[in-house]
């Protein structure tokens, strides 16, 4: 055993990269669910974003354009979901599952010519003075811009939901769509916007995977990250900062357990492998339970179909 081989600074830096895709997808889904819509198509939107971002980045040679394309693609796919569930009033769970299957198939189709191609390298932010600080430099200041974007997004969502009037309206729609409707708020329009935001975030998360974290295109490369993101929103009891905590915990322990294995820790590998799931669930459940409330803060109208009768 040689724990000195594990460099904590490198580990923390890798943790942030590893957690960013699920963080992006989860923060988007949080907004969707806060508006009272359950979109189980996160995985499908992620993988569609992954391939669209990859394709555009390769064609244009610009990873930044790729990320924008990924967000647009995710939003476009989510529009299908929004149309089916909000206009045609289809079942949200079934439609979301269908969206995942559709996204996986669509991405394989689009991705056929892109397998085995190298995407253009994404620039890493190397802030001259800050990145030279020992320990903190590599952890905080040498990432690609998307890591900071994801953090900023969490802060923005938190601020939006908590302190803005628009955020209050969005939450009202999610808590009681009939009341919100009676007050004159456009429930369907607000939900459309929320669903599109969720789609764009999921698309970005997918593109982060195919452009920066792995960087390559392989069919089915999200391999369940969308489902982790969905679970994270529930375990974080619909709070933005807890989503961040959950994502970093999950990403961090995933990376840590691989490092511990490589260092030869004498704990059975099975326990190490399940640790990211267990620890994330335990910590978030503990936080939720601490307040002594049985209620998990789920938006009251979550998953319910809204049909304006008057």
């Amino acid at each position, binding site marked *: 055993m040689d724990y000195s081989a594990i460099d904590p600074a490198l580990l923390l830096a890798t943790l942030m990269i590893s957690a960013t895709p699920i963080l992006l997808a989860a923060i988007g889904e949080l907004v969707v669910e806060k508006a009272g819509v359950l979109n189980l198509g996160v995985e499908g939107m992620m993988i569609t974003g992954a391939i669209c971002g990859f394709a555009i980045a390769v064609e244009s040679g610009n990873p930044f354009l790729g990320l924008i394309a990924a967000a647009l693609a995710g939003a476009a796919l989510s529009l299908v979901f929004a149309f089916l569930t909000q206009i045609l009033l289809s079942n949200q769970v079934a439609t979301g599952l269908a969206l995942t299957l559709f996204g996986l198939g669509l991405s394989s189709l689009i991705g056929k010519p892109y397998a085995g191609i190298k995407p253009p390298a994404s620039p890493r932010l190397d802030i001259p003075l800050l990145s030279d600080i020992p320990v903190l430099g590599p952890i905080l200041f040498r990432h690609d811009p998307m890591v900071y974007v994801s953090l900023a997004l969490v802060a923005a969502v938190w601020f939006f939901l908590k302190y803005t009037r628009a955020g209050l309206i969005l939450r009202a729609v999610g808590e009681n769509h009939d009341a919100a409707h009676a007050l004159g708020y456009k429930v369907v329009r607000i939900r459309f916007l929320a669903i599109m935001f969720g789609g764009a975030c999921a698309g970005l998360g997918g593109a982060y995977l195919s452009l920066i974290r792995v960087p390559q295109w*392989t069919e089915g*490369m999200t391999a369940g990250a969308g489902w982790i993101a969905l679970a994270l929103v529930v375990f974080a009891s619909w709070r933005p900062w807890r989503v961040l905590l959950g994502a970093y915990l999950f990403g961090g322990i995933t990376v840590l357990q691989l490092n511990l294995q490589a260092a030869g820790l004498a704990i059975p*590998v099975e326990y190490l492998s399940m640790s990211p799931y267990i620890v994330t669930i335990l910590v978030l459940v503990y936080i939720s339970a601490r307040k002594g409330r049985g209620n998990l803060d789920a938006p009251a109208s979550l998953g319910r179909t809204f049909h304006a009768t008057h």
Partner: protein
Amino acid sequence: MKRRTFLASAALALGIAGAGAALAEEKMKAGFVYVGPVGDFGWTYQHDQGRQAVKAEYGDKVETTFVENVPEGADAERVMTQMALGGADIIFATSFGYMDAVQKVAKKFPNVKFEHATGYKRADNVATYSARFYEGRAVIGTIAGRMTKTNKIGYIASFPIPEVIRGINAAYIHAKKVNPDVEFKIVWVYTWFDPAKEADAATALIEQGVDIIMQHTDSPAAMTIAEEKGIMAFGQASDMSQFGPNAQLTAIIDNWAPYYVERVGAVMDGSWKSQDTWHGFKEGMVQLAPYSSKVPSEVQAEADAMKQAIIEGSYHPFTGPLNKQDGTPWLKEGEVADDGTLAGMNFYVEGIEGEIPQ
């Protein structure tokens, strides 16, 4: 009147059914069950190359179908049952974890032939087949031992099954033989296909100082990371040089095509029998990708010589003296491991650190 119409339509229906059966008899159906996507550029990709070879060989006489991304477990049973009900004459189940599902479905459909890759349970209508990947592992182990500068070699392992353990042992024995200072760092990722996790495992290994990565997972993610970080790696199941033009030293290539063509042909002419096939370099089921120019010519020659000796049968990668990890003797001087022990290998050889997950 009514009865007559009924009889007439019943006769018509029977006639159609009969014609359908006749049509189905002409065309043979072969089904393939894959654990990953056909575009993984690794394990499943190679199996699908085999399926395409069957199509090319027999043309209109055979109809091939495949289902990709089939999880090992209850889903596999469902997919195979559906294939059998759909009239498949032979079903290739291409992952170790399908073993029990194959046995169950095979019992229900005694007239359908099943081929299970890398498994060891057979029945009258279940054959098993695998490749002696360990022969390739022995060669890449030798190359790795010669090429490493940090003397640390990373190994991304999937599941603790005999096939994977055999590969680790074969690579380790031969790396150690040419470089006594070599050390293996093994990471179990518990998945065949998850590019993000495979990439994370590669990153973790590189951060701990390995400069060569071997993998027993299906995607080229680790190769991509090796390329990015400027270290060396070996392709797995397929030539992965397009993902790591500078990183890949060589790759072990699984070549299933000749076997698939032969077995489908055997079903056609009625000569199919349950058997256990385990082919290696000699039969061409295991191949090596061209060496990278980074591999010095003397190392290439050494690798080629070993490959040749294995083909001729003058060398076996598991030749004694070899001890098990705990120091108990396994093979005496000059003794060669038998296939039974290899097929069920559940122990590390002496020198490897860490425990095999149970």
